[in-house]
Protein backbone atom coordinates (compact mmCIF):
# COMPACT_ATOMS: atom_id res chain seq x y z
CA UNK A 1 0.00 0.00 0.00
CA UNK A 2 1.49 3.33 -1.01
CA UNK A 3 -0.39 5.24 1.74
CA UNK A 4 2.18 6.20 4.29
CA UNK A 5 0.26 8.67 6.45
CA UNK A 6 1.17 8.40 10.09
CA UNK A 7 -2.43 8.89 11.26
CA UNK A 8 -4.74 5.88 11.26
CA UNK A 9 -6.98 5.57 8.19
CA UNK A 10 -10.52 6.95 8.29
CA UNK A 11 -11.86 3.44 7.94
CA UNK A 12 -10.29 0.04 8.37
CA UNK A 13 -12.24 -3.17 7.91
CA UNK A 14 -10.55 -6.34 9.04
CA UNK A 15 -11.96 -9.78 8.32
CA UNK A 16 -15.55 -8.54 8.41
CA UNK A 17 -18.07 -11.37 8.07
CA UNK A 18 -21.81 -10.79 8.23
CA UNK A 19 -24.19 -13.68 8.70
CA UNK A 20 -27.97 -13.37 8.88
CA UNK A 21 -30.07 -15.97 10.67
CA UNK A 22 -32.59 -17.57 8.34
CA UNK A 23 -35.93 -15.74 8.38
CA UNK A 24 -37.89 -18.58 9.99
CA UNK A 25 -35.22 -19.15 12.64
CA UNK A 26 -34.76 -22.81 11.70
CA UNK A 27 -33.19 -23.30 8.26
CA UNK A 28 -29.63 -22.47 7.31
CA UNK A 29 -28.27 -19.03 8.07
CA UNK A 30 -27.16 -16.80 5.22
CA UNK A 31 -23.67 -15.37 5.01
CA UNK A 32 -23.81 -12.16 3.00
CA UNK A 33 -20.16 -11.14 3.03
CA UNK A 34 -17.11 -13.03 4.20
CA UNK A 35 -13.74 -11.89 5.37
CA UNK A 36 -13.83 -8.44 3.84
CA UNK A 37 -10.82 -6.24 4.56
CA UNK A 38 -9.99 -2.81 3.18
CA UNK A 39 -9.01 0.65 4.34
CA UNK A 40 -10.15 4.10 3.28
CA UNK A 41 -7.73 6.96 3.83
CA UNK A 42 -8.86 10.38 5.04
CA UNK A 43 -10.14 12.35 2.05
CA UNK A 44 -10.24 9.33 -0.24
CA UNK A 45 -13.14 8.51 -2.57
CA UNK A 46 -13.62 4.74 -2.76
CA UNK A 47 -16.29 2.94 -4.75
CA UNK A 48 -17.45 -0.62 -4.23
CA UNK A 49 -18.92 -2.38 -7.24
CA UNK A 50 -20.37 -5.84 -7.42
CA UNK A 51 -23.20 -7.82 -8.92
CA UNK A 52 -26.71 -7.70 -7.48
CA UNK A 53 -26.93 -9.51 -4.16
CA UNK A 54 -23.23 -9.28 -3.39
CA UNK A 55 -23.81 -7.59 -0.03
CA UNK A 56 -22.69 -4.07 -0.97
CA UNK A 57 -25.31 -2.39 1.20
CA UNK A 58 -24.60 -4.86 3.99
CA UNK A 59 -20.98 -3.71 4.16
CA UNK A 60 -22.11 -0.09 4.21
CA UNK A 61 -24.57 -0.77 7.04
CA UNK A 62 -21.77 -2.39 9.02
CA UNK A 63 -19.57 0.69 8.52
CA UNK A 64 -22.50 2.91 9.56
CA UNK A 65 -22.93 0.88 12.72
CA UNK A 66 -26.53 0.03 11.85
CA UNK A 67 -25.53 -3.63 11.62
CA UNK A 68 -23.11 -5.45 13.84
CA UNK A 69 -20.72 -7.74 11.98
CA UNK A 70 -20.81 -11.39 13.08
CA UNK A 71 -17.05 -11.51 12.80
CA UNK A 72 -14.15 -9.17 12.25
CA UNK A 73 -13.65 -5.58 13.17
CA UNK A 74 -14.57 -2.13 11.84
CA UNK A 75 -12.21 0.61 13.00
CA UNK A 76 -12.99 4.30 12.56
CA UNK A 77 -9.93 6.54 12.88
CA UNK A 78 -8.27 3.74 14.78
CA UNK A 79 -11.13 3.12 17.21
CA UNK A 80 -13.18 -0.04 17.14
CA UNK A 81 -16.78 0.71 16.20
CA UNK A 82 -19.58 -0.07 18.64
CA UNK A 83 -23.07 1.25 17.92
CA UNK A 84 -23.81 4.05 15.46
CA UNK A 85 -20.79 5.48 13.65
CA UNK A 86 -20.73 9.10 14.85
CA UNK A 87 -18.19 10.13 12.23
CA UNK A 88 -20.29 8.97 9.31
CA UNK A 89 -23.06 10.51 7.25
CA UNK A 90 -25.22 8.13 5.25
CA UNK A 91 -27.04 8.79 2.02
CA UNK A 92 -29.53 6.03 1.43
CA UNK A 93 -30.66 4.49 -1.81
CA UNK A 94 -34.34 4.88 -0.95
CA UNK A 95 -36.01 8.12 0.03
CA UNK A 96 -35.03 8.74 3.64
CA UNK A 97 -36.30 12.27 4.19
CA UNK A 98 -38.85 12.74 6.93
CA UNK A 99 -42.02 13.31 4.90
CA UNK A 100 -43.62 15.42 7.66
CA UNK A 101 -40.78 17.96 7.68
CA UNK A 102 -40.24 20.67 5.07
CA UNK A 103 -37.03 20.61 3.02
CA UNK A 104 -35.49 23.22 5.32
CA UNK A 105 -36.47 21.34 8.49
CA UNK A 106 -35.14 18.11 7.00
CA UNK A 107 -31.75 19.72 6.40
CA UNK A 108 -31.85 21.30 9.88
CA UNK A 109 -32.75 18.00 11.59
CA UNK A 110 -29.17 16.77 12.10
CA UNK A 111 -28.22 20.01 13.87
CA UNK A 112 -31.35 19.86 16.05
CA UNK A 113 -30.42 16.31 17.08
CA UNK A 114 -27.05 17.70 18.12
CA UNK A 115 -28.66 20.18 20.48
CA UNK A 116 -28.73 23.27 18.26
CA UNK A 117 -31.89 25.33 18.80
CA UNK A 118 -34.53 25.05 16.10
CA UNK A 119 -34.20 28.66 15.00
CA UNK A 120 -30.44 28.54 14.67
CA UNK A 121 -30.54 25.14 12.96
CA UNK A 122 -32.94 26.50 10.35
CA UNK A 123 -30.75 29.54 9.85
CA UNK A 124 -27.72 27.37 9.22
CA UNK A 125 -29.69 25.02 6.97
CA UNK A 126 -30.67 27.76 4.52
CA UNK A 127 -27.15 28.24 3.02
CA UNK A 128 -26.91 24.47 2.60
CA UNK A 129 -30.15 24.40 0.64
CA UNK A 130 -28.75 27.18 -1.52
CA UNK A 131 -25.55 25.24 -2.03
CA UNK A 132 -27.52 22.34 -3.53
CA UNK A 133 -29.56 24.78 -5.61
CA UNK A 134 -32.81 24.63 -3.65
CA UNK A 135 -32.70 28.00 -1.84
CA UNK A 136 -36.26 28.85 -2.84
CA UNK A 137 -37.71 25.43 -1.98
CA UNK A 138 -37.17 25.41 1.77
CA UNK A 139 -40.87 25.36 2.65
CA UNK A 140 -41.74 22.50 0.29
CA UNK A 141 -42.46 19.06 1.66
CA UNK A 142 -40.69 16.02 0.18
CA UNK A 143 -43.74 14.89 -1.79
CA UNK A 144 -43.81 18.28 -3.50
CA UNK A 145 -40.23 17.85 -4.79
CA UNK A 146 -38.97 15.83 -7.74
CA UNK A 147 -36.76 12.77 -7.21
CA UNK A 148 -33.63 14.76 -8.08
CA UNK A 149 -34.57 17.57 -5.70
CA UNK A 150 -35.19 15.08 -2.89
CA UNK A 151 -31.69 13.68 -3.44
CA UNK A 152 -30.26 17.20 -3.21
CA UNK A 153 -32.07 17.76 0.07
CA UNK A 154 -30.75 14.42 1.32
CA UNK A 155 -27.22 15.46 0.29
CA UNK A 156 -27.50 18.75 2.18
CA UNK A 157 -29.03 16.91 5.14
CA UNK A 158 -26.06 14.53 5.24
CA UNK A 159 -23.36 17.16 4.75
CA UNK A 160 -24.64 19.82 7.17
CA UNK A 161 -23.47 17.88 10.23
CA UNK A 162 -19.99 17.79 8.70
CA UNK A 163 -19.31 14.04 8.83
CA UNK A 164 -15.70 12.95 8.32
CA UNK A 165 -16.89 9.92 6.38
CA UNK A 166 -19.73 9.88 3.86
CA UNK A 167 -21.42 6.61 3.01
CA UNK A 168 -23.47 6.53 -0.17
CA UNK A 169 -25.62 3.59 -1.20
CA UNK A 170 -26.45 3.93 -4.90
CA UNK A 171 -27.70 7.43 -4.10
CA UNK A 172 -28.46 8.38 -7.69
CA UNK A 173 -29.69 5.05 -9.07
CA UNK A 174 -33.33 6.18 -9.12
CA UNK A 175 -32.57 9.29 -11.21
CA UNK A 176 -32.69 9.69 -14.97
CA UNK A 177 -29.30 9.77 -16.68
CA UNK A 178 -29.09 13.58 -17.19
CA UNK A 179 -30.08 14.44 -13.63
CA UNK A 180 -27.76 11.75 -12.46
CA UNK A 181 -24.69 13.16 -14.21
CA UNK A 182 -25.54 16.63 -12.88
CA UNK A 183 -25.75 15.26 -9.36
CA UNK A 184 -22.51 13.32 -9.76
CA UNK A 185 -20.68 16.48 -10.83
CA UNK A 186 -22.23 18.46 -7.99
CA UNK A 187 -21.17 15.81 -5.52
CA UNK A 188 -17.61 15.90 -6.86
CA UNK A 189 -17.60 19.71 -6.56
CA UNK A 190 -18.81 19.62 -2.97
CA UNK A 191 -16.36 16.86 -2.17
CA UNK A 192 -13.32 18.58 -3.69
CA UNK A 193 -14.10 21.77 -1.76
CA UNK A 194 -13.85 19.94 1.54
CA UNK A 195 -12.30 16.52 1.13
CA UNK A 196 -13.99 13.86 3.19
CA UNK A 197 -13.65 10.12 2.97
CA UNK A 198 -16.35 8.68 0.76
CA UNK A 199 -17.49 5.08 0.44
CA UNK A 200 -19.68 4.95 -2.63
CA UNK A 201 -21.71 1.89 -3.52
CA UNK A 202 -22.89 1.38 -7.05
CA UNK A 203 -23.59 -1.35 -9.56
CA UNK A 204 -22.65 1.05 -12.35
CA UNK A 205 -18.97 0.56 -13.15
CA UNK A 206 -18.77 3.74 -15.25
CA UNK A 207 -20.08 5.81 -12.37
CA UNK A 208 -17.61 4.14 -10.01
CA UNK A 209 -14.58 4.87 -12.22
CA UNK A 210 -15.68 8.41 -13.04
CA UNK A 211 -16.07 9.39 -9.40
CA UNK A 212 -13.46 7.47 -7.43
CA UNK A 213 -9.82 7.32 -6.44
CA UNK A 214 -10.11 3.59 -6.01
CA UNK A 215 -12.58 0.89 -7.10
CA UNK A 216 -13.13 -2.29 -5.08
CA UNK A 217 -14.78 -5.29 -6.74
CA UNK A 218 -16.96 -7.70 -4.78
CA UNK A 219 -17.59 -11.27 -5.88
CA UNK A 220 -21.09 -12.64 -6.39
CA UNK A 221 -22.90 -13.63 -3.19
CA UNK A 222 -23.54 -15.47 -0.99
CA UNK A 223 -20.41 -15.11 1.10
CA UNK A 224 -19.14 -12.34 -1.16
CA UNK A 225 -15.48 -11.43 -0.87
CA UNK A 226 -13.34 -8.59 -2.15
CA UNK A 227 -11.65 -9.89 -5.29
CA UNK A 228 -10.19 -6.83 -6.92
CA UNK A 229 -8.81 -3.41 -6.20
CA UNK A 230 -8.08 -0.81 -8.88
CA UNK A 231 -6.50 2.59 -8.51
CA UNK A 232 -8.14 5.23 -10.73
CA UNK A 233 -5.39 7.68 -11.62
CA UNK A 234 -7.53 9.99 -13.73
CA UNK A 235 -6.80 13.63 -13.02
CA UNK A 236 -9.20 15.87 -11.13
CA UNK A 237 -11.29 17.94 -11.38
CA UNK A 238 -13.35 15.62 -13.54
CA UNK A 239 -16.51 15.99 -15.52
CA UNK A 240 -18.27 12.66 -15.26
CA UNK A 241 -19.85 12.94 -18.71
CA UNK A 242 -16.65 13.89 -20.52
CA UNK A 243 -14.23 11.66 -18.72
CA UNK A 244 -16.04 8.60 -20.05
CA UNK A 245 -14.65 9.36 -23.52
CA UNK A 246 -10.96 9.45 -22.56
CA UNK A 247 -8.77 6.50 -23.60
CA UNK A 248 -7.42 5.92 -20.13
CA UNK A 249 -10.97 5.67 -18.73
CA UNK A 250 -11.81 3.09 -21.38
CA UNK A 251 -8.68 1.07 -20.56
CA UNK A 252 -9.61 1.03 -16.88
CA UNK A 253 -13.18 0.14 -17.68
CA UNK A 254 -12.08 -2.77 -19.90
CA UNK A 255 -9.72 -4.06 -17.24
CA UNK A 256 -12.21 -3.95 -14.36
CA UNK A 257 -15.15 -5.14 -16.44
CA UNK A 258 -13.19 -8.24 -17.47
CA UNK A 259 -13.20 -9.27 -13.83
CA UNK A 260 -16.63 -7.97 -12.91
CA UNK A 261 -18.37 -9.64 -15.84
CA UNK A 262 -17.67 -13.15 -14.59
CA UNK A 263 -19.11 -12.24 -11.19
CA UNK A 264 -22.17 -10.65 -12.73
CA UNK A 265 -22.79 -13.85 -14.70
CA UNK A 266 -22.31 -15.94 -11.55
CA UNK A 267 -24.67 -13.66 -9.63
CA UNK A 268 -27.21 -13.94 -12.41
CA UNK A 269 -26.98 -17.73 -12.32
CA UNK A 270 -27.45 -17.63 -8.53
CA UNK A 271 -30.64 -15.59 -8.74
CA UNK A 272 -31.95 -17.89 -11.46
CA UNK A 273 -31.36 -20.91 -9.22
CA UNK A 274 -33.43 -19.48 -6.37
Amino acid at each position, binding site marked *: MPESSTASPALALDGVTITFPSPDGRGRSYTAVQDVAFTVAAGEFVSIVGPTGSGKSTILNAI*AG*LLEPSGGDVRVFGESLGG*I*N*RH*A*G*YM*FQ*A*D*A*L*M*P*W*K*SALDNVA*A*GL*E*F*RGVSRGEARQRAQPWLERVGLGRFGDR*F*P*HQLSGGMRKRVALA*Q*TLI*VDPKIILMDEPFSALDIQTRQLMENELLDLWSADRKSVVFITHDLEEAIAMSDRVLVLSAGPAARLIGEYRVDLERPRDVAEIRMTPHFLDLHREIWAQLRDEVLKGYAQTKLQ
Partner: protein
Amino acid sequence: MASASTARKRLPSRPVILAMQVGVLIGFFLLWHVLTATNILSPFFFGTPLAVLERTFKDFASGAIYYHLGITLLETVLAFGIGTVAGILFGFWFARVPLVSAVFDPYIKAVNALPRVVLAPIFALWLGLGIWSKVALGVTLVFFIVFFNVYQGVKEVSPVVLANARMLGANSRDLLRHVYLPSALAWVFSSLHTAVGFAMVGAVVGEYLGSAAGLGYRIHQAEGVFDTVGVFSGMLVLTIFVIIIDAAVTFIEKRLLHWRPQEAHTTNAQG
Protein backbone atom coordinates in the same frame (compact mmCIF):
# COMPACT_ATOMS: atom_id res chain seq x y z
CA MET B 1 -57.19 4.37 -17.51
CA ALA B 2 -57.80 6.73 -20.45
CA SER B 3 -61.54 6.23 -20.37
CA ALA B 4 -61.62 6.90 -16.66
CA SER B 5 -59.80 10.22 -16.99
CA THR B 6 -61.95 11.40 -19.90
CA ALA B 7 -65.05 10.41 -17.96
CA ARG B 8 -63.81 12.54 -15.08
CA LYS B 9 -63.16 15.44 -17.41
CA ARG B 10 -66.71 15.26 -18.75
CA LEU B 11 -68.17 15.87 -15.26
CA PRO B 12 -69.97 19.23 -15.13
CA SER B 13 -68.43 22.12 -13.21
CA ARG B 14 -68.65 22.47 -9.43
CA PRO B 15 -71.53 24.97 -9.28
CA VAL B 16 -73.61 22.72 -11.53
CA ILE B 17 -72.92 19.73 -9.28
CA LEU B 18 -73.78 21.83 -6.23
CA ALA B 19 -77.07 22.85 -7.87
CA MET B 20 -77.80 19.18 -8.59
CA GLN B 21 -77.03 18.26 -4.97
CA VAL B 22 -79.45 20.93 -3.73
CA GLY B 23 -81.93 19.62 -6.28
CA VAL B 24 -81.75 16.12 -4.79
CA LEU B 25 -82.39 17.57 -1.32
CA ILE B 26 -85.40 19.59 -2.50
CA GLY B 27 -86.66 16.61 -4.49
CA PHE B 28 -86.49 14.41 -1.41
CA PHE B 29 -88.47 16.91 0.69
CA LEU B 30 -90.98 17.42 -2.13
CA LEU B 31 -91.55 13.67 -2.48
CA TRP B 32 -91.94 13.38 1.30
CA HIS B 33 -94.36 16.33 1.29
CA VAL B 34 -96.49 15.00 -1.58
CA LEU B 35 -96.66 11.48 -0.15
CA THR B 36 -97.74 12.69 3.30
CA ALA B 37 -100.05 15.45 2.00
CA THR B 38 -101.95 12.94 -0.14
CA ASN B 39 -102.06 10.51 2.80
CA ILE B 40 -100.29 7.76 0.84
CA LEU B 41 -97.94 7.80 3.84
CA SER B 42 -99.61 8.57 7.12
CA PRO B 43 -98.40 11.92 8.55
CA PHE B 44 -98.75 10.37 11.98
CA PHE B 45 -96.03 7.78 11.32
CA PHE B 46 -93.95 9.72 8.83
CA GLY B 47 -94.38 13.32 9.94
CA THR B 48 -94.41 16.05 7.34
CA PRO B 49 -91.35 17.94 6.17
CA LEU B 50 -92.91 21.33 6.88
CA ALA B 51 -93.77 20.35 10.43
CA VAL B 52 -90.26 18.97 10.99
CA LEU B 53 -88.64 22.15 9.67
CA GLU B 54 -91.02 24.30 11.67
CA ARG B 55 -90.34 22.36 14.87
CA THR B 56 -86.58 22.54 14.30
CA PHE B 57 -86.77 26.26 13.63
CA LYS B 58 -88.85 26.82 16.76
CA ASP B 59 -86.42 24.84 18.89
CA PHE B 60 -83.58 27.00 17.74
CA ALA B 61 -85.58 30.23 17.95
CA SER B 62 -86.77 29.55 21.49
CA GLY B 63 -83.29 28.41 22.49
CA ALA B 64 -84.62 25.20 24.04
CA ILE B 65 -82.28 23.05 21.95
CA TYR B 66 -79.01 24.75 22.86
CA TYR B 67 -78.82 23.26 26.33
CA HIS B 68 -79.19 19.72 24.94
CA LEU B 69 -76.80 20.43 22.08
CA GLY B 70 -74.28 21.69 24.61
CA ILE B 71 -74.57 18.54 26.73
CA THR B 72 -74.12 16.25 23.73
CA LEU B 73 -71.21 18.34 22.46
CA LEU B 74 -69.54 18.23 25.88
CA GLU B 75 -69.91 14.44 26.06
CA THR B 76 -68.60 14.05 22.52
CA VAL B 77 -65.58 16.27 23.14
CA LEU B 78 -64.73 14.57 26.45
CA ALA B 79 -65.11 11.07 24.98
CA PHE B 80 -63.02 12.02 21.99
CA GLY B 81 -60.30 13.71 24.05
CA ILE B 82 -59.96 11.00 26.69
CA GLY B 83 -60.23 8.16 24.15
CA THR B 84 -57.62 9.72 21.86
CA VAL B 85 -55.06 10.44 24.57
CA ALA B 86 -55.47 6.96 26.06
CA GLY B 87 -55.31 5.40 22.58
CA ILE B 88 -52.09 7.24 21.75
CA LEU B 89 -50.43 6.33 25.07
CA PHE B 90 -51.37 2.66 24.90
CA GLY B 91 -50.68 2.46 21.17
CA PHE B 92 -47.14 3.71 21.75
CA TRP B 93 -46.62 1.44 24.71
CA PHE B 94 -47.78 -1.65 22.85
CA ALA B 95 -45.80 -0.83 19.71
CA ARG B 96 -42.57 -0.08 21.55
CA VAL B 97 -42.70 -2.98 24.04
CA PRO B 98 -43.29 -6.17 22.04
CA LEU B 99 -43.76 -8.27 25.19
CA VAL B 100 -46.77 -6.20 26.25
CA SER B 101 -48.42 -6.47 22.85
CA ALA B 102 -47.70 -10.21 22.68
CA VAL B 103 -49.27 -10.87 26.09
CA PHE B 104 -52.29 -8.58 25.76
CA ASP B 105 -53.02 -9.25 22.09
CA PRO B 106 -55.87 -11.76 22.60
CA TYR B 107 -57.53 -9.62 25.27
CA ILE B 108 -57.40 -6.48 23.16
CA LYS B 109 -58.97 -8.41 20.31
CA ALA B 110 -61.62 -9.88 22.61
CA VAL B 111 -62.64 -6.52 24.06
CA ASN B 112 -62.65 -4.96 20.61
CA ALA B 113 -64.90 -7.74 19.33
CA LEU B 114 -67.46 -7.01 22.06
CA PRO B 115 -70.30 -4.75 20.83
CA ARG B 116 -69.70 -1.72 23.02
CA VAL B 117 -73.38 -0.75 23.16
CA VAL B 118 -74.07 -3.57 25.61
CA LEU B 119 -71.75 -1.78 28.03
CA ALA B 120 -74.05 1.26 28.20
CA PRO B 121 -76.32 -0.12 30.98
CA ILE B 122 -73.25 -1.14 32.99
CA PHE B 123 -71.77 2.36 32.68
CA ALA B 124 -75.14 3.83 33.69
CA LEU B 125 -75.06 1.62 36.79
CA TRP B 126 -71.49 2.53 37.65
CA LEU B 127 -71.44 6.19 36.75
CA GLY B 128 -75.07 7.24 37.07
CA LEU B 129 -77.29 8.96 34.53
CA GLY B 130 -75.13 12.10 34.21
CA ILE B 131 -72.66 12.80 31.43
CA TRP B 132 -69.91 10.45 32.61
CA SER B 133 -71.68 7.21 31.68
CA LYS B 134 -72.02 8.57 28.11
CA VAL B 135 -68.41 9.73 28.07
CA ALA B 136 -67.31 6.26 29.19
CA LEU B 137 -69.25 4.61 26.37
CA GLY B 138 -67.77 7.03 23.85
CA VAL B 139 -64.27 6.42 25.21
CA THR B 140 -64.55 2.65 24.72
CA LEU B 141 -65.47 3.29 21.10
CA VAL B 142 -62.85 5.96 20.34
CA PHE B 143 -60.02 4.29 22.23
CA PHE B 144 -59.75 1.23 19.99
CA ILE B 145 -59.83 3.17 16.75
CA VAL B 146 -57.02 5.45 17.90
CA PHE B 147 -55.15 2.64 19.62
CA PHE B 148 -54.99 0.43 16.51
CA ASN B 149 -54.03 3.35 14.30
CA VAL B 150 -51.22 4.52 16.57
CA TYR B 151 -49.97 0.96 16.93
CA GLN B 152 -49.93 0.62 13.15
CA GLY B 153 -48.37 4.05 12.70
CA VAL B 154 -45.49 3.33 15.06
CA LYS B 155 -44.96 -0.17 13.66
CA GLU B 156 -44.94 1.01 10.06
CA VAL B 157 -42.42 3.82 10.36
CA SER B 158 -40.18 3.44 7.34
CA PRO B 159 -36.98 1.68 8.48
CA VAL B 160 -34.97 3.86 6.09
CA VAL B 161 -36.33 7.09 7.58
CA LEU B 162 -35.59 5.68 11.01
CA ALA B 163 -32.03 4.65 10.08
CA ASN B 164 -31.48 8.05 8.48
CA ALA B 165 -32.56 9.89 11.64
CA ARG B 166 -30.30 7.70 13.73
CA MET B 167 -27.36 8.37 11.44
CA LEU B 168 -28.07 12.10 11.76
CA GLY B 169 -27.56 11.71 15.48
CA ALA B 170 -31.08 11.30 16.86
CA ASN B 171 -31.29 9.73 20.32
CA SER B 172 -34.36 7.79 21.39
CA ARG B 173 -36.13 10.94 22.59
CA ASP B 174 -35.48 12.67 19.27
CA LEU B 175 -36.75 9.61 17.43
CA LEU B 176 -39.97 9.70 19.46
CA ARG B 177 -40.52 13.39 18.80
CA HIS B 178 -39.33 13.70 15.22
CA VAL B 179 -40.15 10.30 13.75
CA TYR B 180 -42.55 8.09 15.72
CA LEU B 181 -44.98 10.77 16.89
CA PRO B 182 -45.49 12.50 13.51
CA SER B 183 -45.88 9.13 11.83
CA ALA B 184 -48.40 7.94 14.40
CA LEU B 185 -50.29 11.25 14.33
CA ALA B 186 -50.74 10.92 10.58
CA TRP B 187 -52.53 7.63 11.21
CA VAL B 188 -54.55 9.13 14.05
CA PHE B 189 -55.69 11.98 11.87
CA SER B 190 -56.61 9.70 9.02
CA SER B 191 -59.04 8.02 11.45
CA LEU B 192 -60.19 11.28 13.02
CA HIS B 193 -63.48 11.42 11.15
CA THR B 194 -64.35 7.92 12.29
CA ALA B 195 -63.22 8.61 15.86
CA VAL B 196 -65.30 11.80 16.17
CA GLY B 197 -68.26 9.97 14.69
CA PHE B 198 -67.92 7.19 17.25
CA ALA B 199 -67.58 9.67 20.11
CA MET B 200 -70.93 11.09 18.95
CA VAL B 201 -72.49 7.65 18.70
CA GLY B 202 -71.36 6.90 22.26
CA ALA B 203 -72.88 10.14 23.55
CA VAL B 204 -76.20 9.85 21.72
CA VAL B 205 -76.73 6.13 22.33
CA GLY B 206 -75.88 6.65 26.00
CA GLU B 207 -78.38 9.47 26.25
CA TYR B 208 -80.96 7.44 24.43
CA LEU B 209 -80.65 4.57 26.89
CA GLY B 210 -80.96 6.67 30.02
CA SER B 211 -80.35 10.33 30.76
CA ALA B 212 -81.98 13.64 31.59
CA ALA B 213 -80.49 15.82 28.86
CA GLY B 214 -78.93 15.77 25.38
CA LEU B 215 -80.05 15.17 21.81
CA GLY B 216 -80.44 11.42 22.36
CA TYR B 217 -82.65 12.17 25.35
CA ARG B 218 -84.85 14.47 23.28
CA ILE B 219 -85.28 11.88 20.54
CA HIS B 220 -86.12 9.27 23.13
CA GLN B 221 -88.65 11.58 24.78
CA ALA B 222 -90.36 12.33 21.46
CA GLU B 223 -90.45 8.64 20.63
CA GLY B 224 -92.07 7.85 23.99
CA VAL B 225 -95.10 10.00 23.15
CA PHE B 226 -95.32 8.97 19.45
CA ASP B 227 -94.16 12.44 18.43
CA THR B 228 -92.80 11.50 14.99
CA VAL B 229 -92.14 15.11 14.08
CA GLY B 230 -90.05 15.47 17.24
CA VAL B 231 -88.00 12.37 16.36
CA PHE B 232 -87.32 13.57 12.83
CA SER B 233 -86.54 17.05 14.09
CA GLY B 234 -84.05 15.56 16.54
CA MET B 235 -82.45 13.55 13.74
CA LEU B 236 -82.22 16.68 11.59
CA VAL B 237 -80.47 18.62 14.35
CA LEU B 238 -78.14 15.67 14.93
CA THR B 239 -77.27 15.58 11.21
CA ILE B 240 -76.49 19.29 11.10
CA PHE B 241 -74.42 18.90 14.26
CA VAL B 242 -72.37 16.06 12.73
CA ILE B 243 -71.79 17.96 9.48
CA ILE B 244 -70.47 20.98 11.40
CA ILE B 245 -68.17 18.84 13.55
CA ASP B 246 -66.95 16.97 10.48
CA ALA B 247 -66.14 20.24 8.72
CA ALA B 248 -64.19 21.37 11.78
CA VAL B 249 -62.23 18.11 11.75
CA THR B 250 -61.47 18.49 8.05
CA PHE B 251 -60.20 22.01 8.74
CA ILE B 252 -57.90 20.84 11.55
CA GLU B 253 -56.73 17.90 9.48
CA LYS B 254 -55.76 20.16 6.57
CA ARG B 255 -53.82 22.44 8.91
CA LEU B 256 -51.88 19.65 10.60
CA LEU B 257 -51.35 17.22 7.72
CA HIS B 258 -50.39 19.63 4.96
CA TRP B 259 -47.18 17.66 4.49
CA ARG B 260 -49.09 14.75 3.03
CA PRO B 261 -49.81 14.24 -0.67
CA GLN B 262 -53.27 15.53 -1.48
CA GLU B 263 -54.65 12.26 -2.85
CA ALA B 264 -54.26 10.66 0.57
CA HIS B 265 -57.24 12.66 1.77
CA THR B 266 -60.57 10.93 1.80
CA THR B 267 -63.12 13.66 1.37
CA ASN B 268 -66.59 13.16 2.69
CA ALA B 269 -69.41 14.43 0.51
CA GLN B 270 -69.73 18.15 1.05
CA GLY B 271 -72.78 20.36 0.65
